[in-house]
C-alpha cells in the first residue's frame, strides 16, 4: 500500500511526527488535529508545520487557549466518529485537562459497557533537558499509567515516533502519546514502508548479559551511552526501550531480567510512586529468585523540576546511572 514511498534517511523526530500526522490525515478523513498554535505557526515545536495549509482549517484547528476545552471537544468529536489528535503545548499544561482525561476520556468506554469508543490521541511534548522555564520540562507519565482506560506510550527515536504515532491514531482506545522533546531534533533513519513493532511491545535495543537497563523516551539514549561506558569497564549491559508504559510489556522485562539477574530503571520523572516503582515491584514479584540484587531506580527527585541551570543535576545523567549500576553489582 505504501510501496511508492521511499525509505527516508535521517529524519528528525519532529519530521517523523509531522509525517505521521500528514499520512494519517491523508489516509483517513476522520482524523482531525487540534491544539494551541498548531495551525499557521505549526506548533511551538513545528510538529504540525504545513498541515493546516495542506488540510485546511477544519481538520487542523487552532484552538482557544483552554486545555480542558481541547480534550473535552475532542471527546465530543470522537463520539461523532472522528479520530482527534490533540496537542498539549507542554507537559506542564496538561493539568487543566486532567479532569477530562481521567474522569471522561479514560472511563467512557467502560461506562458505556463498550458502546462508546474514544480513539483520541493526546500528544504531549515532555521531559527536560532543553533549558526551559517552569512547567516546560516535566514528566507526567505516572499519573496516566495509574489511570485505567488510557494507553500510554513514548517513542525514543524518530523511526518509532513515526510508527508509534500512526499506531496510536489507529488505536480505538485513547492514547497519551509522550514525545521526548529533548530528542525532537535527533535524526535517525526512518523506514516509512515497514511497521517495525506493535505499539505496546518493549524492545531490546542493545543486548547484554550482566544487567538490564530499562528506560523509555528521552532516557533510552542515556542508557545506551551507559551501556557503552559499561562495556569499557567490562560489563555487558542490556538496554530495554520499554516504548509502552500502559500496558507495560512485563514479559520482555521479565525475560531480560531472568537472564541478566540485575536491573536498573531510569526515567526523568520523580521516582517516588513513578513508573520505576511499578517496574521494580513487578520484577521483584516475578523474578524474586532470579535477582542477584534489588532493582534500582534512577530518576528525578521528589521536588518540583528545578530552574534550568540545575536541570543537569536533577535529571539522571551518565554518572548517576553508572553509580546505580555499580551499586547493583556491589550487592
Amino acid at each position, binding site marked *: 500500500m505504501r510501496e511508492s514511498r521511499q525509505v527516508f534517511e535521517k529524519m528528525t523526530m519532529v519530521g517523523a511526527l509531522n509525517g505521521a500526522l500528514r499520512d494519517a490525515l491523508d489516509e483517513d478523513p476522520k482524523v482531525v488535529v487540534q491544539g494551541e498554535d498548531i495551525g499557521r505557526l505549526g506548533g511551538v515545536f513545528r510538529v504540525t508545520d504545513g498541515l493546516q495549509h495542506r488540510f485546511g482549517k477544519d481538520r487542523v484547528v487552532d484552538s482557544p487557549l483552554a486545555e480542558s*476545552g481541547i480534550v473535552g*471537544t475532542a471527546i465530543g468529536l470522537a463520539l461523532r466518529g472522528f479520530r482527534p489528535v490533540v496537542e498539549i503545548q507542554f507537559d506542564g499544561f496538561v493539568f487543566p485537562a486532567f479532569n477530562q482525561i481521567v474522569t471522561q476520556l479514560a472511563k467512557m468506554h*467502560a461506562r458505556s459497557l463498550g458502546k462508546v469508543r474514544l480513539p483520541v490521541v493526546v500528544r504531549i511534548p515532555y521531559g527536560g533537558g532543553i533549558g526551559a522555564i517552569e512547567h516546560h520540562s516535566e514528566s507526567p507519565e505516572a499519573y496516566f499509567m495509574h489511570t485505567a482506560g488510557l494507553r500510554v506510550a513514548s517513542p525514543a527515536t524518530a523511526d518509532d515516533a513515526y510508527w508509534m504515532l500512526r499506531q496510536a491514531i489507529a488505536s480505538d482506545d485513547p492514547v497519551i502519546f509522550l514525545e521526548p522533546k529533548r530528542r525532537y531534533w535527533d535524526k535517525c533513519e526512518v523506514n516509512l514502508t515497514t511497521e517495525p513493532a506493535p505499539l505496546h511491545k518493549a524492545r531490546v535495543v542493545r543486548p547484554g548479559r550482566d544487567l538490564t537497563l530499562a528506560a523509555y523516551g528521552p532516557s533510552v539514549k542515556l542508557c545506551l551511552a551507559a551501556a557503552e561506558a559499561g562495556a569499557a569497564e567490562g560489563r555487558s549491559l542490556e538496554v530495554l526501550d520499554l516504548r509502552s508504559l*500502559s500496558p*507495560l510489556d512485563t514479559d520482555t522485562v521479565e525475560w531480560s531480567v531472568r537472564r541478566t539477574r540485575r536491573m536498573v530503571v531510569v526515567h526523568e520523572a520523580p521516582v517516588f510512586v513513578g513508573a520505576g516503582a511499578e517496574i521494580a515491584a513487578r520484577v521483584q514479584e516475578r523474578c524474586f529468585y532470579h535477582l542477584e540484587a534489588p532493582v534500582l531506580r534512577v530518576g528525578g527527585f521528589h521536588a518540583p523540576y528545578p530552574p534550568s541551570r540545575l536541570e543537569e543535576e536533577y535529571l539522571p545523567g551518565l554518572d548517576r546511572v553508572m553509580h546505580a549500576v555499580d551499586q547493583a553489582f556491589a550487592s
Partner: protein
Amino acid sequence: MELVQLLTPEGERFEHPDHPLETTPEELRGLYRDMLLTRRFDAEAVTLQRQGELGLWASLLGQEAAQIGSGRATCPDDYVFPCYREHGVAWTRGVDPLNLLGMYRGVNHGGWDPDANNFHLYTIVIGPPLLHAVGYAMGMAREGADSAVLAYFGDGASSQGDVAEAFTFATVNAAPVVFFCQNNQWAISTPTSHQTRAPIHRRSAGWGFPGIHVDGNDVLACLAVTRSALERARRGEGPTLIEAHTYRMGPHATSDEPRRYRDDSERQTWEAKDPLLRLRAHLEKHGHTDAAYFEDLAQEAEQLALRVREGVRAMPDPDPAAMFRHVYVDEHAQVSEEQREYEAFQATFVQEGPQ
C-alpha cells in the same frame, strides 16, 4: 429580560412574537401524557429506592415541563447530552426508562447505547459533558449535517469552568448547540444566589450569543424556545443559551434532607406553578380532553410503573468479569493478567464449593 411564557399557571394560552408555536390538541395531549408518565415513573423510582431496589435516585419532580418541552423540540438526528436527572428528556428520546435505573441500582454506570437514541449517557461529574456536546456539534457541522446538539446543565453546574470553555469553543466554531440550563433554584443545599449574582441567561451575552429566559414550568414555552434555538443552530447561526426557571420539588437525591437548608413554604409556592396542572387546566378548558382520557392515562401510568418495578427487580447483578471487560477496546496486558489472576483465585472457591 422577560420570561417567555406561553401558558399561565391557570392554563391561559399566550402567543409570543419571537417564539410562535402552533399545536394541535393531539400534540397537547401528547405533552401532557409525556409529563404524567415521566412523573409516575419518577415516583416509582423513588419508591423503589425506599424499598432498597435502587441505591439512589435523583428525582425530576417539578421539572417535567422543562424536560419534556425541550426534549420534544429535538428531531431524531439531533443529539442530547444530559446530566443525571434528565429522565423526562430520556423519555422524549425513546430511551427505555428501565435503562435509566441501572446506574442508580448499581448494576452499571449507564451502559445504554447512546447512538441508539442519540441520547448520551448520564454523566456524574459536573462540567465535562458540556464540552463533549460542543465537540459533537463541531463534528456535525464538519459533516454538514442538518442537525444540532442539545446539552443540559444545572444552575450549580453553571459555576464550573468547563461551562465557560464550552461557550468559547461553541462560539469560535459556530457550533450547532443549544445549552439548556434547568435553573431549579438549588444545587443540593446551595441556592442559585450562591452561584451567580446575575441571571444565568445573561451569561451568553459575554460570548456574543443569545440567552433566553423561559418559564421552565411551561411545557409549551420550553418547547417553543428550544425549537427555535435548535433551528437557529441548524441554520449555522451558532449556539443559544436557554435558562428555564423551574424548581426541584424533592430532595437533591433520595439521600438528601432538604429540611436542613430550605423551608417547606418555598415548595408550596411552587406547587401553584405545577407544570402538569396548568396544561391539564388548559386541556380541560378547551375541551381537548375528557374523563376517559385521564382515566386511560392513569392506567397507562400504572402499567408503566408496574413494568418498571418488575423490570428492576429482575435486573441481574452484573457478572464480575464485567469489571475487566471494556476497560479497553483492545487487549491490555495488565487487565488480562489481573483478570486471569482473579479468575484463578475465584476458581479456588468453586473447587472448594460454596463458602
